């Protein structure tokens, strides 16, 4: 059962990597990386079940945290050109609440 899931996840990773290679804009790449991260979290869990090592779930949890933070940090940099404190939000933001 988990072998089927692993193969399916690897096939979807190949599709997403193709999209990453043939991407048109910057945001396409961020989208592909974000979807890749979600699939990678599930793949780590599935491989843990496949090899009977439930410790892998800790790594999956950690990867989920890093994936979220990484996406948010990249997008924040695109938007405000700074990862740290933003002092002049009122100049840049348009409708962000």
């Amino acid at each position, binding site marked *: *059962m*988990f072998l*089927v*899931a692993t193969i*399916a*996840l690897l*096939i*979807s*990773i190949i*599709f*997403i990597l*193709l*999209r990453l290679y043939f991407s*048109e*804009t910057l*945001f*396409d790449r*961020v*989208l*592909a990386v*974000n*979807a890749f991260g*979600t*699939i990678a*979290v*599930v793949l780590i*869990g*599935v491989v843990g*079940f496949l090899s009977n090592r*439930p410790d892998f*779930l*800790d790594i*999956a*949890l950690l990867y*989920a*945290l890093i994936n*979220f933070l990484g*996406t*948010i940090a990249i*997008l924040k940099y*695109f*938007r405000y050109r700074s990862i740290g404190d933003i002092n002049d939000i009122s100049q840049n933001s*348009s409708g*962000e609440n």
Partner: protein
Amino acid sequence: MEIFEILLNVLSWIFVLVGSFLMVLGAIGILRFHGFWARLHAASVIESGGMIFLLAGMCLQAGDFLIFFKLAFIGLFLFITGPTSTHALASAALLDRSKPKKESN
């Protein structure tokens, strides 16, 4: 007890197969659609449907409360952060695109 175990196995087979199917379809959608905004919707199939079904299938095979809790924790975390990062991505991409006229309905 025998019947119960068979039922559990069948159910988790169904969940895992449906989840894998949704994952592959979402990836095909990301590859196939034209334009960033359509691809965003294909990615949300991966982030909601595929993730929920695969984690539910794994939960049924857990057999230990701690493993079940970890899976549920991962699921809850992805359930909250997935839409948040999609929203951040859409909101950042909105700067490149003109907004529609404001008329609520």
